[in-house]
């Protein structure tokens, strides 16, 4: 186990395109870090640079106490779980798990013990002699994790490991990964584009956009105090309302902010509220109801209990202290 330190890491491709720039993250030993962002934000590239599958154009990556920029992936003491599992199709589950150990010259008995242990943890014991194609998606996912566990590496790297699973299984596996990491206490970097997955898994989130870090923080920090308009819009579901301040001039502080952010759940119906919303489409979610509409021509979404009364227009107020204020030009948080 080890800490991982990224110092001003950047990636420039052969054609001169910059994929990642100026990324610095200190990952503590045993920490679970999630890199999250929209597709093309550079999160996978960053992970692959840590893994050694992409060369590092700028900055340094340290795993433990050594700089690994020029170290082969196999020698970085990391294990990786791939989106499509990347199980060797011609090998049995057992051989898949053992392959990396065998290549390192681990003694036979040691391999058997570790494979049995991983199989026990992941409950894949009964499938050890099957080929990957005879397994379900969830079982393959477990095998892929098993391959990482047996190595007992300094760090796990996860590259969108759940995106090939159906929605229900994804929730189950998410929990399993979380518990596994808690139990093994292995430093982990996890890449996903799904903000909910990011929120639920991370000790700390790294929100990336356009190859740069927008914000680093615990899920709650990022949720409560998004550092920029981008983070505000990306983290949280339903997404935060981001409204030009001229549409909501009566809200406190909106006078010197360009953009005002209000989470749909921070809005509530009040007869004398300062916001007048024209109601449009309504989505019933069961316990909750999402009401989409407009204020002064700007889109606005409100989350309300599903038994509340609806009308064509609603007067709304927002919870005190729940406003997020952003600079219109830089998009940075100002209060």
């Amino acid at each position, binding site marked *: 186990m080890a800490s991982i330190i990224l110092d001003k890491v950047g990636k420039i491709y052969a054609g001169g395109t910059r994929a990642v720039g100026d990324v610095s993250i200190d990952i503590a030993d045993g920490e679970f870090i999630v890199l999250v962002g929209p597709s093309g934000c550079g999160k996978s590239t960053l992970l692959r640079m840590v*893994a050694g599958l992409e060369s590092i154009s700028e900055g340094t990556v340290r795993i433990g106490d050594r700089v690994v920029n020029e170290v082969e992936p196999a020698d970085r003491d990391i294990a990786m779980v791939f989106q499509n599992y*990347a199980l060797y199709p011609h090998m049995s589950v057992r051989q898949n798990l053992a392959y990396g150990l065998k*290549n390192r010259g681990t003694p036979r008995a040691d391999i058997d013990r570790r494979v049995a242990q991983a199989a026990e943890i992941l409950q894949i014991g009964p499938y050890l002699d099957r080929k990957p194609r005879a397994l379900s998606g969830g079982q393959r996912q477990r095998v892929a994790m098993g391959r990482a566990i047996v190595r007992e590496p300094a760090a796990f790297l996860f590259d969108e490991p759940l995106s090939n699973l159906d929605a229900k299984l994804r929730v189950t596996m998410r929990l399993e990964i979380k518990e596994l990491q808690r139990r093994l206490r292995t430093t982990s970097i996890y890449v996903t584009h799904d903000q909910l997955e990011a929120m639920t898994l991370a000790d700390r989130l790294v929100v990336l956009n356009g190859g740069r870090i927008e914000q680093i923080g615990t899920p709650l920090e990022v949720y409560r105090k998004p550092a920029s308009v981008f983070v505000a819009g990306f983290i949280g579901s339903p997404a935060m309302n981001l409204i030009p301040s001229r549409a909501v001039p009566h809200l406190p502080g909106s006078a010197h902010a360009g953009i005002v952010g209000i989470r749909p759940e921070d809005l509530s119906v009040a007869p004398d509220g300062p916001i007048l919303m024209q109601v449009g489409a309504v989505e019933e979610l069961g316990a909750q109801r999402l009401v989409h509409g407009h204020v002064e021509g700007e889109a606005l979404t409100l989350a309300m209990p599903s038994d509340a009364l609806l009308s064509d227009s609603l007067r709304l107020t927002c919870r005190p202290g729940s406003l997020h204020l952003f600079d219109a030009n830089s998009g940075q948080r100002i209060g």
Partner: protein
Amino acid sequence: MIENRPGLNLLAHLVLMLGVVIVALPVWVAFVASTHTATDFMSGTIPLWPGPYLLENYSRMLDAGVSTSGTPPVGTMMLNSLIMALLIACGKIAISITSAFAIVYFRFPFRNLAFWCIFITLMLPVEVRIVPTFQVVADLGMLNSYAGLSVPLIASATATFLFRQVFLTIPDELTEAARIDGAGPMKFFRDILIPLSRTNIAALFVILFIYGWNQYLWPLLITTSSDYYTIVAGIKRMADAVDGLPQWHLVMATAMLAMIPPVAVVIGMQRLFVKGLVETEK
């Protein structure tokens, strides 16, 4: 099939049966001829049904052959053909799979040039460069040798392209997983690529075995010693020699023996054969 038209179905069966007969006719005639003695042909027409001399004719050809034709026993020629076919098939597969590996998994200077050098062999069949190629083989002292029979034929653009195609469909993640698992290039090649290409290798082997066995012009040119005659090239020498004496039953027995191994391979491994044929043309 869309609608049921018994008339059309019957016609289709008739067409196919006629096709099967046409395709089989020359082999049937050869087989019949190979079971008779020379005197049976004297009447001027050949018999239509097999005679009793099958074992006698075949075992005589396998063991002794027709000494007047200067060809060795058919058994020897078949062994030569087998060696040549195996060397060509294995050689082509070996050098093509490593070439494809180099081209797909490495970036190096002049990679494109190497690719085009291999590609160009498609445009230079042995028939169009006979004399100078013969000269090269003669200068290298490879006449009358198994190396001479096989090595000049084992460069293969087709097989290289086939393996390149196969490798391109293997997901990158598998290579990355292997790298993280500590496999270097050759280990990856041996542990992952070759096992994953197994059926392609087998299919290609079937096609190349037939290709090698059926070589004609090349062995004809470079073998002057009867020890290295192959059966397909030897049969013509035999036919020439016996043309005066009507020993057709023996020539046909040899023709049957020349056909049996490749035909058996095609029929026995029909699925691999069809796969190989379709893939090498892709």
